[in-house]
């Protein structure tokens, strides 16, 4: 089966990562490496992880996102998760996932506002 591709583009000093609709585990695991390498290559102050195309998030996918956020944080960057669908938000909450103290925004546009303004309050789980 063809591996669904992960798109990473740099917009100003922010990396915008677009997750495919239904990635397999290998693609999800590759996310971490690719994002961290991109952080190093193009010094970025933040990462916007857009999940608006994602149809379902299971515990493996969610854990990888939370881990990647921590790793980006260790490298000095902020991560903002954007575009979560209502059905996905309902499902992962019922599944018991909290995603830690992950910062979120409704759209990529709003994530840019948060990153530009810098010190936005951290979203409590």
């Amino acid at each position, binding site marked *: 089966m063809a591996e669904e591709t992960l798109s990473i583009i740099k917009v100003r000093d922010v990396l915008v990562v677009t997750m495919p609709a239904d990635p397999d585990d290998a693609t999800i695991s590759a996310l971490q490496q690719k994002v961290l390498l991109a952080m190093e290559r193009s010094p970025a102050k933040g990462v916007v992880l857009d999940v608006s195309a994602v*149809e379902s998030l299971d*515990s493996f996918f969610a854990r990888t996102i939370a881990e990647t956020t921590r790793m980006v944080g260790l490298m000095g960057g902020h991560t903002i998760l954007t575009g979560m669908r209502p059905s996905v938000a309902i499902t992962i909450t019922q599944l018991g996932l909290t995603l830690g103290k992950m910062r979120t925004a409704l759209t990529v546009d709003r994530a840019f506002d948060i990153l530009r303004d810098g010190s936005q309050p951290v979203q409590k789980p």
Partner: protein
Amino acid sequence: MSDSLPEEVALQTETDIVVVRKSVREAAIRLGFGITDVTRIITAASELARNVFLYAGSGVVRCRVVNQSDQVGLELIVEDHGPGITDIDQAMQPGYTTGKGLGLGLPGAKRLMDEMEIESEAGKGTKITVKKWRKKT
């Protein structure tokens, strides 16, 4: 109706989890579930399929339509011949895991579905049946 459902997906590799999600998604949409229930069913299937892959190595997922008075439902049977679950009560505790998971798979899948039944024997394998119901229209 049940004839048109994808009946069985063999779980051999990690990528088969995606195949399970796609088949289950198709079946749930065809049965007329709304998008939130479709997402719940896909997510539960994904957790159960990953458990098979993590703990048993391989297994099979079967999917069928079930009827009950004024309700129609989707039933998923996830079966493997792995090590089995020695203590089901413990396995149902959120956060409990013997492997590298988060310990959310089984209790999470139960919350996302309407019914769950676990049959397991140490050394023989595990069979998990979950159902999601929808009112007939």
